């Protein structure tokens, strides 16, 4: 009897240590989440100086978003731009991480290169987008270089081409995040027991075989983590395309991401539609994350 009470008494410190997180989570995550869901059931916006609502309208906001099909188009835009950035990002990161962690290569100045590849991430996304906007403008430096080299005859309007604009967004996301991913994958690779590599070498496996048969399977938990965080980040893509296209999502709304669409509703302070869209986005993010986790994570449970 005395013993159990002592354990209970001791356990309370666990709860006390949890208080900071719980408080911060409740204030900055839980309450906003609940109020977003609550707001999504109301017609509530401003027209100029007039406030309209809040009037309870049930699921009308959701019906409106889901019925006109735009959601899928903007989700498509978001995913296309995410994939354009993510595929090169994961490939380059895997390669760099494998090189950096391979002791037999004896790379010099490792610290320097690790810092350099991480640097783009330190620049503010909006500054980075502004830089690209200037570089790829119709009369910007990239066009003048291409013309002087004789590759182009007249300036190519990058911002008027759907493919070019999407690729620019992808390129920027790739440049900004591949350093971060490399560091994460390196951490994962260095966690693998060196004796496994040595054993594989002794058995006569080539470098490619070691990478595919030893490194990749053991790296799976970290890969899953990288994929999920990148997917969630990708779904919430906003600042780069917003600044690059000046909020318009042009050409022809082909770079309009879901969050940019959400932002457009806030012009009229339309909290109802904004809330409904946020809730849908929350659900989609949740479902996709679970799907990725299930697809790639089954083996790790064993």
């Amino acid at each position: 009897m005395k013993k159990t009470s002592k354990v209970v008494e001791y356990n309370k410190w666990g709860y006390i240590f949890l208080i900071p997180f719980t408080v911060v989570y409740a204030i900055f995550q839980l309450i906003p989440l609940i109020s977003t869901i609550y707001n999504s059931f109301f017609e509530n916006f401003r027209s100029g100086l007039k406030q309209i609502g809040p009037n309870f309208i049930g699921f009308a906001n959701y019906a409106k978003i889901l019925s006109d099909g735009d959601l899928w188009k903007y989700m498509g835009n978001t995913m296309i731009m995410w994939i354009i950035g993510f595929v090169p990002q994961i490939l380059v990161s895997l390669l760099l991480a494998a090189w950096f962690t391979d002791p037999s290569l004896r790379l010099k100045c490792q610290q320097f290169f690790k810092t350099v590849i991480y640097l783009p991430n330190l620049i503010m996304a909006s500054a980075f987008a502004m830089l690209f906007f200037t570089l790829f403008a119709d009369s910007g430096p990239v066009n003048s270089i291409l013309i002087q080299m004789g590759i182009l005859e007249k300036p190519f309007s990058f911002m008027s081409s759907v493919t070019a604009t999407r690729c620019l967004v992808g390129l920027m996301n790739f440049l900004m995040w591949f350093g971060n991913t490399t560091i994460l994958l390196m951490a994962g690779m260095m966690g693998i027991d060196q004796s496994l590599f040595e054993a594989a070498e002794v058995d006569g496996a080539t470098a490619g075989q070691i990478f595919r048969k030893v490194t990749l399977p053991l790296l799976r938990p970290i890969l899953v983590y990288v994929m999920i965080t990148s997917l969630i980040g990708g779904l919430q893509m906003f600042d780069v395309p917003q600044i690059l296209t000046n909020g318009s999502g042009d050409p022809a709304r082909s770079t309009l991401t879901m969050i940019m669409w959400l932002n457009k509703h806030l012009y009229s302070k339309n909290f109802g539609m904004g809330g409904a869209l946020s809730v849908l986005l929350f659900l989609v993010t949740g479902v996709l994350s679970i799907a990725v986790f299930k697809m790639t994570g089954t083996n790790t449970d064993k």
Partner: protein
Amino acid sequence: MKKKLLSTLLASTMVAGMLAGCGSSSDSAAPAATQAPAAATEAATEAPAAATEAATEAATEAPAADEGKVLNIQCWNEEFINRLTDHYPGYEANDASDPTKGGKIGDVEVKFTITPSDDNAYQNNLDTILPENANASADDKVDIFLMEADYALKYVNSDVTMNLADLGIDADKDLGDQFQYTKDIVTDATGNLKGASWQACSAGLIYNRAAAKEVLGSDDPADVQEAVKDWDTFNATAAKLKEKGYTITSSVNDTYRVYSNNVSAPWVQDGKVVIDDNIKKWADDSKALLDAGETNNYELWSDDWNKGFYPDGKVFCYFGPAWLINFSMAPDQDGSIAKDGGWGFCVGPQSFYWGGTWIAAAAGTDNPTLVKDVILTMTTDQDVLKEIVEKDYDCVNSKSLLTSLAADDSFGLPVLGGQNPYGELEKGAENVDMSNISDYDQGCNEEFQTAMKGFFDGNYKTYDDAVAAFNKAIVEKYPELTTD
């Protein structure tokens, strides 16, 4: 016991850490909290003193002293600040080198608040403070705010703007010399006038004299006008210009205002967005000109658009008002057409206006007498307006003054090679008809041009696709509107 002590210690460090995490706020809050009572008592002791001072002052000063001591003016740039500082009789600037620091009119303090228009910030600011203006403390009450035509109706059609008649300004008697279109823009749904402007930014077609001589054989405004007198003739002239290597305009966006000022009905009718025939005509004409290589698709004010300010840009004409000619077409740059006086001016296919600032009185102002005087002085006083013309080259909002300027050869503009445009500007201002504006013009015009850019670039296959995108954007911006 020891364990307990340790855990208490750990827990308390953690809580301390948590507080440190919010450091910046709690640190600064603590001293602020201790200072606050002190400040409050100070204020409390000072306040009665100030009040009695003000009261005694008020008692000895002029009868208008029952009005506020501070005239608050909301604006988005320094234009009006400079006009008021330079031309309002009896205005004393606090700092002659920086007019934005405000000044004094008699014993009333004039304070300017500048909020830039970018990202709708200026309007967002007005939307927040104007409805609360009646409850604001006396020194913070907004007395005057400035508006642009694109969104003026939004404020004019609400209670936040005072009727000029309530200030004692008679629209017919006091403002009879002003152009009708400048009044249409600030007239609410029931016919009340709620603002006034000192500018009549009527605009016209500014053509390159060298190009006119080469292609049309004459650079006389009357002859050039004949070649651009309506849109069909204008487009036919574009083909002629193309043969000599000129584009008729620098960008399709140059002509948008000309078409959109001449619509037959407002953008929004009974809550439904309707694309006027003249707006559609702009899209059709522009697409045709672009496909024929007779113009370009640059953004206004971009570096590419500006190229036509120089002879090598090979642009035949720009559309604009007096301020574009005087300030924007690089008149200070060597080699520019403007510096050599190489531009000419004529009315163009249709009359339009571009720009202008309207002065409005905020409901709840505590300086109605002064506000009335500022509006009347700045927009109707002939001496002040004459000064504005001479110093700032604004095309002023006074029929009689423009008539006398048009007759005065000394007002020929150097950038126009000595041509006096005031006659044409006055004619243009008479013809501008802005009775068809709506609360939603700014959003509709912006979104329509954005959507059509996609059409011109080929990213929307058809005009109808572009219109569908336009409709989407409008409903996002104005959820209460419907579209086709």
